[in-house]
């Protein structure tokens, strides 16, 4: 008698993952990508075999998104087929793709990449998945014995239940923080007609970056956030034709200049925080909260030195267990609301989409996500040349910034779906002015030539 096929396992979406399918649209999905570049060209057959093994171990990530009457849910699925990379990262992840499998695995020359729909996991979970995939590929291709260190898992063991839990539910508290309802400055730009995603990668020396940040008494994320804020302030001044140096003019500002300054909006950068580091746990689902760090230029211009201080203190103030708990508690409460629970999924999707469009991206100007230093056991590390992390663009704002470091180099990725390279130009030029050696790589297809 043939063995009966086991019914696929299914699980509820975690609290953070609920909003992403609702906010999905034809031209935009909330996705991110982690890629590992090897020393040799990728063998797709070996990659497929490695993926088949890793997918079975991470069934909460290699899953497909489905609809029930009231909620979306994740269902275990077979591993996807690996494909050659497209002409741009994170090319349209549509509902019909996500309902088959919410991740995709791509290869191009010597690079393998995994693109994740954000409902299945966050950056940390994605990085662990990708690291395991790369390590298994190295084991299969080079016959290396890669030890189970640095987040590498035993692929033969059954999936531990603690990796599949929704940690938000465990850690939600009684008090909800008031929503940050400031309408901030938004970057705009002429959107590429086909939503082409420009990727500009700035490669910096990681040690120099750490040293410079240390000199300012701030973390690497904080250092880059301060520089990003400065660039965003400059962009806002240019848009409103304001010369910030006039603020200190002994004659004082004219009425016209004061009126112009009243149009200024706060500039804020959203920083995702890995909650596993704060509350512990090893869930492979989403477990991340965001804090908004920024300044209000209506109070006057800020020098870079001032920004380093402000960012440092705001991060210290906001990134605490108590404050973060209060930030994600309202979302958990909404999910538990009995009236919202019984609303049919189409209506719930509509409500969530309206909420997302109204408040989702209004509280920050852009996002800077740092996955930190990537580490592999040395048996695997010698075959790896580069590791990158790329966020997709936001639904409204055309930019997003992400960062990861590997083998002494930091890879700062700025993505953009607008035509003009405004932010990355300012950002990388500022880094050069601060004394960094920056190497730029880009997938640009239509940079206009200037003589």
């Amino acid at each position, binding site marked *: 008698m043939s063995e009966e096929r086991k019914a696929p396992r299914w699980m509820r979406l975690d609290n953070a993952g609920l909003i992403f399918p609702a906010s999905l649209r034809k031209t935009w999905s909330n996705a991110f990508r982690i890629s590992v570049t090897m020393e040799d060209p990728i063998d797709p057959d070996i990659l497929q075999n490695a993926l088949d093994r890793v997918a079975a171990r991470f069934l909460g990530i290699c899953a497909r998104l489905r609809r029930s009457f009231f909620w979306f849910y994740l269902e275990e699925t077979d591993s996807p087929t690996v494909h050659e990379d497209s002409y741009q990262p994170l090319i349209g992840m549509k509902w019909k793709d996500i309902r088959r499998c919410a991740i995709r695995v791509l290869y191009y020359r010597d690079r393998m990449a995994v693109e994740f729909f954000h409902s299945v996991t966050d950056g940390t979970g994605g990085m662990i998945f990708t690291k395991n995939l790369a390590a298994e590929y190295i084991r299969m291709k080079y016959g290396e014995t890669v030890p189970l260190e640095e987040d590498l898992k035993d692929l033969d063991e059954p999936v531990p239940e603690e990796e599949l839990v929704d940690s938000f539910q465990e850690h939600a508290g009684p008090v909800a923080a008031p929503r940050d309802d400031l309408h901030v400055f938004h970057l705009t730009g002429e959107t590429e007609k086909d939503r082409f995603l420009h990727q500009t990668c700035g490669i910096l020396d990681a040690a120099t970056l750490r040293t410079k940040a240390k000199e300012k008494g701030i973390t690497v994320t904080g250092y880059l956030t301060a520089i990003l804020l400065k660039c965003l302030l400059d962009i806002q001044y240019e848009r409103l034709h304001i010369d910030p140096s006039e603020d200190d003019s002994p004659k004082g500002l004219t009425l016209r200049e004061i009126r112009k300054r009243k149009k200024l909006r706060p500039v804020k950068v959203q920083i995702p925080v890995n909650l596993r580091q704060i509350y512990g746990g090893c869930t492979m689902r989403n477990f991340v909260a965001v804090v908004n760090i920024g300044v209000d230029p209506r109070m006057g211009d800020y020098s870079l030195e001032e920004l380093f201080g402000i960012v440092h203190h705001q991060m210290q103030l906001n990134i605490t267990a108590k404050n973060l708990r209060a930030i994600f508690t309202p979302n958990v409460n909404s999910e538990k609301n009995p009236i919202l629970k019984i609303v049919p999924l189409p209506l719930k999707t509509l409500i969530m989409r309206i909420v997302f469009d109204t408040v989702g991206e209004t509280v920050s100007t852009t996002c800077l996500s740092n996955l930190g230093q990537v580490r592999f056991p040395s048996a695997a590390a010698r075959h790896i040349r580069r590791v990158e992390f790329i966020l997709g663009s936001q639904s409204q704002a055309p930019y997003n910034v992400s960062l990861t470091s590997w083998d002494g180099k930091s890879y700062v990725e700025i993505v953009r779906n607008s035509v003009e390279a405004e932010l990355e130009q300012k950002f990388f030029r500022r880094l050069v002015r601060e004394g960094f050696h920056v190497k730029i790589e880009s997938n*640009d297809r239509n940079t206009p030539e200037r003589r």
Partner: protein
Amino acid sequence: MYCINCGVELQKGAKVCPLCGTKVYHPDIQETPEPALYPRFSEGEETFSPGAVQFILGFVFFLPIVLCLMIDLNMNHGIVWSGFVCCGLASLYIAVCLPLWFKRKNPVIFVPVALTALLLTALYISLKTHGGWFLSFAFPVGGALILLVEAIIVLCRYTVGAYPHRLLYIFGGAVIILGGLLVLLEFLIKVTFDIPMIWWSIYPLTALVIIGVMMIIVAANKKLRRSLHKKLFI
């Protein structure tokens, strides 16, 4: 190589700075380009989902059919005139909308199907009006036309390929056969409707034979084809 404007190092072989668009050029430095970050850009294929169009078209055809049937049944207590409307619309639907349901819209299949639907409509009209003209007139003429059209489509689809002049052979032959069909048409009109033959079909037959033969001559003569192309290209 560095951008003189931004101060950043650029990919080897980069032609412009991706940040500011400044042209990168140094006469003494020859760089082998680094491989591109992604495969070459290609315009994504627009995927067209015909589902909605099929639904709307289906509704557009279905609605008048139902309305006509209801009105006819209500007024005449039977299908009197609405049958003609239904048959006409059904054959039009088969001709226009049926291919949309299939991924491969092969005309070798769909054109004869559409023509057969028209022929069946003619059969319905003939039976309903007690005309008695279907078997002796519409069927042979329609059948011959379907065969001719099918032959043209099959030959065009499977034999032309990289030899467009073969179209001249095909249509030359088809034009001559069409002339012959006109003679058959006149003969069948006489047999079915008892209208005396005045041999009007000889005139179009002559003209069509001349045109067909000329097309075949042009097809067979490469030099003539070239000369005509030179004079007539658009």
